[in-house]
């Protein structure tokens, strides 16, 4: 490395140093130290005490850990396909030529801009069994005894899923951008060949925007496993642990019970789950995702 190259390297490093400092301090160091803590009894106030695999063994024996894992998988398995169907359908509708299209696009995007805390409080009222707008409409539609959404262990998880569908604006915008990249010429050719709308969607549009679909689903999977704010604000994990999602339980262990070692082992298990699913998705994507380039 000559003097000029060295100077350039130093300048480059200086320019990105705020990021490097932030990354090392707030990501890399906690990330690596959590591996060590996951093998320790660590309450943050006293030095960590090495206990080997005890945290992992206790975790697998912990009934609430399995409940939180079940709740999280339940959410992911129901929410991901549902959110895909809803956001893709809305993106297709918003891609048509109708009057007031910009207005509709804004309407569907606006909920994304509302902070999650405010949104959760709003939905608390919408799900209210006595005065909630949701039950008001259900009664109007002829449902005699609509559910007490968040007060009933059977309906609390579905309620959180319904609420999640409210904030699909981001995914819709990404799908919309993908849809607008589909060459008009291909769709017009299909029209000339007599293709129906569903032929165009499943045989032209979907394959062409498959990288966009893959990206959105992958991000949804990662975000869904980290569901926290809604149950934390709306239910606190109840009723009867029905909304104790994985990250909420991790938070309770770390910041309410001061079991940082236990929480670190939970974090690593979640990391492995998400990593495996991501690698699996990438493997599938090689066969199913079409990259035009």
């Amino acid at each position, binding site marked *: 490395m000559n003097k000029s190259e060295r100077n350039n390297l130093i300048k480059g490093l200086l320019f990105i140093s705020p990021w490097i400092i932030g990354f090392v301090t707030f990501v890399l160091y906690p990330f690596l130290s959590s591996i060590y803590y996951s093998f320790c*009894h660590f309450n943050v*106030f006293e030095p960590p005490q090495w206990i080997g695999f005890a945290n992992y063994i206790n975790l697998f024996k912990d009934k609430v850990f399995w409940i939180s894992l079940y709740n999280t998988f339940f959410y992911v398995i129901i929410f991901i396909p549902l959110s895909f169907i809803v956001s893709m359908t809305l993106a297709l509708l918003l891609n048509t030529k109708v009057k007031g299209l910009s207005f509709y696009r804004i309407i569907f995007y606006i909920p994304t801009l509302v902070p999650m805390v405010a949104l959760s409080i709003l939905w608390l009222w919408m799900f209210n069994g006595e005065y909630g707008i949701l039950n008001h409409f259900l009664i109007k539609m002829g449902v005699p005894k609509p559910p007490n959404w968040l007060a009933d262990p059977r309906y609390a998880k579905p309620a959180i899923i319904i609420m999640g569908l409210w904030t699909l604006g981001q995914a819709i915008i990404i799908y919309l951008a993908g849809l607008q990249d589909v060459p008009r010429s291909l769709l017009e050719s299909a029209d000339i060949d007599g293709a129906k709308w569903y032929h165009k969607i499943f045989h032209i549009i979907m394959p062409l925007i498959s990288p966009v679909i893959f990206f959105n689903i992958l991000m949804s999977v990662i975000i869904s496993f980290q569901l926290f704010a809604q149950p934390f604000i709306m239910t606190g994990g109840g*009723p009867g642990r029905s909304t104790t999602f994985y990250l909420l339980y991790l938070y309770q262990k770390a910041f309410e019970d001061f079991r940082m070692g236990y929480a670190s082992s939970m974090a690593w298990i979640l990391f492995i789950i998400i990593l495996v699913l991501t690698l699996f998705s990438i493997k599938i994507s090689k066969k199913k995702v079409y990259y035009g380039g």
Partner: protein
Amino acid sequence: MRIIKLIILVFLTGSIVSCSRKIEYREGRIVVSYWEKWTGFEKEAMQKVVDKFNDSQDMIYVDMLPVSAIDQKLIVATASGVPPDLAGVWTKTVPTLADKGAITDLTEFCREAGIGQDDFIPFIWELITHRGRVWAMMTTPATIGFYWNKRLFREAGLDPNKPPKTIDELDVYSDKLTVFEHKETGKRYTYYELVQKLGGQEEATEYIKLNNLPMIQAGFLPSEPGWWPWLWGYFFGGTMFEAPDKITANQKENIEAYKWIQTYIKKYGEYNVKKFSSGFGSFSSPQNAFLSGKIAMELQGVWLYNFIDKYSPGMQWGAAAMPTKDKEHYGMAMCEGDVLIIPQGAKCVKEAFEFIKFLTKPENMELLCSEQRKFSPLSEVTPGFYSQHKHPYIRVFRKLAENKYTFSFPRTGIWTEYNRDLTEAYHRIWLGGENPEKVLNEIGEKPQEILNLELEILRKRGKI
């Protein structure tokens, strides 16, 4: 490469300097930083004491800062080595913080200052000690009493000055005060009337279900306000924890209490109770179920008067002890409180304790407690304290703290975890209709294992 090394050095030095809090001085006085969870009038009451302290001498200046989510922020600050010198938390967190080594042992400080057990109501002193050591200082204590709406009592034909004293009486009172309405005819029935008319509870419940009669007023619901789902067993003579190491969730008295809880949702109808309860407004609002007259009797803390005064000043109400299963236990209550602690690693421990010492003087404690409309934790009060107190039932709440059966949350370092398990048990029994005995047997196992593990660690560390 020298430049890179220099940058790293500057960064690390900066981090170390910024992460260690130095003793601060203001006009030559040592500044004691004090974090308090209170806002509004409660904060103003403590501010008066702080101002009085600051005016009283020229060596120390207490700087009080209201802090939200104080539990979490205190952990982070203490773990980072930059805690405040004083913090206002709750008695329920004291055993946990003490076991984890997060707070300063105040035993010797108290001894030197001449502060002892005799200065306090006996049970209050218990609340600030753990494993025989003093860890906190009580600021404002609170007992949980039984409130009733006198207007609704009158309307139901009950004596408004005679609250129920036993669980059996409470059940009858509740039935007389629980009202259902026929949607089409608009006719109203109390549950008691339906039982009398139809010949039994099962028939009355079935009639309500078949005719889809919505509940429009509840006499008593164990789910309201739902803040202490673990305490019902105590009113049946049970306990949830036997110090130092026994989890007793499945005691027969607790099982009996949970079976009793279940009778309420069974007799008034699951759907009705859940729907009616979900319409209750938030505690601190005029839509509060008790303040708005939706529920006639409720278990609540001494502080409820502040909210009655604010949102429903014309309300006719009374306060007494919670009814108990047998008459012998009547007069007992749950007692908790707000406390001051000195976090481990605080820079000005002696100065912080000076403020604590100042606060324990009767005139200062009474200033704080009367402004917050609570009773003094001290055994002696000045003659005018009660006669000038704004809370009309303050003597009742004080008396509850003195009862020999009065209890607190289970005083163990694993309380937060155990509490979550008991809340789950309550939900499974109340909402899920599960068998109380089975649920409580299941629930007790996990906290017992955690407690055994925790005690083992404490033993290894020489703390017990």
